[in-house]
């Protein structure tokens, strides 16, 4: 039934879904196999992970304190913040590798320190940024290490263990690499193998420290989709630190912003990814972050505008960026404020002339645009034709002609015009 590789994958997914469904009905019922000591009702009620008044740090001084954070089953929570803000230290503490300096970490309602190593490892897996340096160990050997909490005293794997290993390796697309020497794999392949190692540990809480940092863009997307799918289907709680804030915005249910020794802000992506929070968190110029694009722009060239761009509907975006790269200050108009060119111009143009959204370009805006245009040395108009809403932008072309300002269609032509202008003025 499964000639195509994807069929097996969806097979695994549905099987997982069925199991997760069982788990939902009685999360605790699965526990007697795993954690015999746990009180069942207790586990069903508690959060997957709860940090209360937690202070973390190496040594006696707290790096981050007063951390209150809850992660529920099936939820993906991202930690974001500048380098050195303490995201990794928080994860190391939650993983039980550093002692909390104050406060508590609870795993399904149980104080972390009260669990044995095996109990903890059967509930929570972690992946940090340090890479194992191995010799003569295959990819599969590395993944199998994740079954450690389930195997007997000599660590020999049962059929069930092998099945889990294969499932995790197929999900991370590493099954084909299973006999490769781990030391000779690429960073991206190793990262996927290490994630498989964490997944085959059957964690109900997964801690990840920058899981996407060694991966190319495609693998980043695959990885986050995989995590979301496992979180949704198996009720796995994920706490991950992420450097790629655009990915955090898209993949996380909630975001906690770490800065200056505390959780500066936490909330849903809508609440966090605004021009109020992100620029403060990362010390960005407030104009360079765009919550719509989820990314940052490099600083705009400052000075008197040299070039006027008549744009709209996305036609100007590449020109704006090209001018920004060449360091030529420019003005743009007349644009609608939330048109893609309008959004970008508000970051990159020295001066932008806006008309209200969905209104045709009016007299007032046109006059301001024409004023700005007359002080420029050239005009770029990439548009072939104008539509109903920006019909009057055509009048800007007339204004340029009247003022004797050259009008060009693209950046290449602009370069020739500006060079001519420069030699002319030198003479």
């Amino acid at each position, binding site marked *: 039934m499964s000639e195509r590789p994807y069929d097996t994958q969806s097979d695994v997914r549905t099987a997982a879904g069925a199991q997760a469904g069982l788990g939902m009905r009685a999360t605790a019922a699965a526990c007697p196999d795993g954690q015999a000591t746990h009180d069942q009702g207790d586990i069903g009620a508690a959060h997957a992970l709860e940090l209360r008044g937690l202070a973390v740090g190496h040594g006696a001084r707290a790096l981050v304190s007063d951390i209150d954070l809850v992660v529920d089953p099936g939820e993906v929570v991202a930690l974001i913040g500048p380098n050195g803000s303490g995201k990794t230290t928080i994860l190391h503490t939650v993983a039980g590798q550093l002692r909390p300096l104050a406060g508590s970490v609870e795993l399904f309602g149980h104080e972390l320190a009260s669990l044995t190593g095996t109990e903890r*490892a059967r509930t929570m897996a972690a992946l940090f940024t340090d890479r194992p340096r191995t010799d*003569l160990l295959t990819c599969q*050997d590395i993944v199998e*290490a994740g079954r450690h909490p389930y195997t007997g005293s000599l660590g020999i794997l049962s059929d069930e263990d092998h099945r889990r290993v*294969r499932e995790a390796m197929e999900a991370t697309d590493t099954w084909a690499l299973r006999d490769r020497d781990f030391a000779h794999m690429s960073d991206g392949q190793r990262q996927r193998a290490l994630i498989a190692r964490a997944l085959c540990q059957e964690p109900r809480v997964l801690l990840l420290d920058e899981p996407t940092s060694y991966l190319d863009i495609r693998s980043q997307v695959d990885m986050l989709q995989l995590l979301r799918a496992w979180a949704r289907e198996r009720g796995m709680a994920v706490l991950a630190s992420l450097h790629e804030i655009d990915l955090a915005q898209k993949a996380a249910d909630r975001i906690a912003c770490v800065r200056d020794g505390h959780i500066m802000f936490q909330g849903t992506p809508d609440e966090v990814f605004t021009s109020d929070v992100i620029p403060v968190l990362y010390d960005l110029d407030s104009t360079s972050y765009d919550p719509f694009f989820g990314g940052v722009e490099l600083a705009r060239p400052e000075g008197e505008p040299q070039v006027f761009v008549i744009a709209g509907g996305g036609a100007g975006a590449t020109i704006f960026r090209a001018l920004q790269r060449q360091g030529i200050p420019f003005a743009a108009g007349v644009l609608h404020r939330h048109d893609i060119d309008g959004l970008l111009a508000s970051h990159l143009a020295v001066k932008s002339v806006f008309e209200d959204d969905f209104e045709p370009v009016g007299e007032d805006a046109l006059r301001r645009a024409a004023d700005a245009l007359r002080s420029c040395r050239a005009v770029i108009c990439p548009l072939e034709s104008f539509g109903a809403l920006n019909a009057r932008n055509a009048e800007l072309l007339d204004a340029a002609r009247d003022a004797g300002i050259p009008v060009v269609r693209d950046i290449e032509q602009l370069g020739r015009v500006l060079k001519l202008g420069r030699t002319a003025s030198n003479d």
Partner: protein
Amino acid sequence: MPGSARARHRSKPDAGQLRPAADPQGSAATKARRGGLSRHTRVLVVDVALAIVLVALMALSVCLGSVGATPAEVLGAILSGPTDATLSQVIWQIRLPRVLTSAILGGALSLSGFLLQTFFNNPIADPYVLGISSGARMAVALVMIALLGSSNILTPWGSVAAALVGSLATMGIVLLLARRVRTQSMLIIAGIMVGYVCSAATNFLIAFADDQDIVNLQSWTQGSFSGASWSDLAVIVIAVAVMSVVVFALSKPLGAYQLGETYAQSVGVDVRRLRILIVLVSSLLSACVTAFAGPISFVGIAAPHLARLAVGSSRPLVVTPACFLAGSVFCCGCDLLARMLFSPVELSVSAVTAVFGAPVVIALMLRRKGYR
């Protein structure tokens, strides 16, 4: 539970015979299983081969020597038990204890090296290079000279205890240094320096000891199995057997530790306890060797490495037996060469192990040049 029952059903086609013909994935799995089987077979073949070579070397060592005898005569002497005949005396009092000692201590040295390599995640760590053997030797020399003055004799257990104290003290110093230096090569250099200091101190002690003692002490400080006796052997067998079982039982946490401390911790290993155990066991193993044979170079690096290469994996569960056997073969063979090469002049066994071991170490360093 219905869910898990279904899961078990699901897993059947994966593991069983239903799919292979139709499904490329299934045939891949079969191949992997065959691969897994051949991997186990390979380990078994390596272990058996090493055991055969070891037995052959031991037989050869017992037969060869300044007192010539045919294999049949030797076998007869062994089977008839110790008697007053010269051949029987030579075999029972000199050759047999020496051969057994070299085999067992070689294995111990190899295991100790394997533990230290895992501990420091450094392929060229072993008790000799890290100065631990030299520290143990210094402690034993100190105790010996102090006791000789008061005309007491150092018992086998006493010398193991002294060597253990010396090993642990040196290990402590190396660990302190290792916390400061982060690179692998610096750790080795620090260990070698500690070893030099301890050797120098030992030489001072010997210089101030009575002439009579020096003869014994000299040959022992060079590394040699020549002084082996049955009473020593009893101690060696007990200590090494217990420690080897402990190392084998530690296979599982050691395997997790190979991936790094944070990973070991995240799968539930008590890393602190494991580290203490590794230090204790490796120190005790090297203490045993040093107490009875002096410092022996490079076996602790070369034998585990050759064992790993032969087995094709560094998983502790499959490496430890091969590791012990490889160390036994290495030491037994080197001791045979040390005795026979320029007979009747006997070389120090450490000189022979260095000739064979150092090239292996150099090869390792070249292979790992990317590591710093």
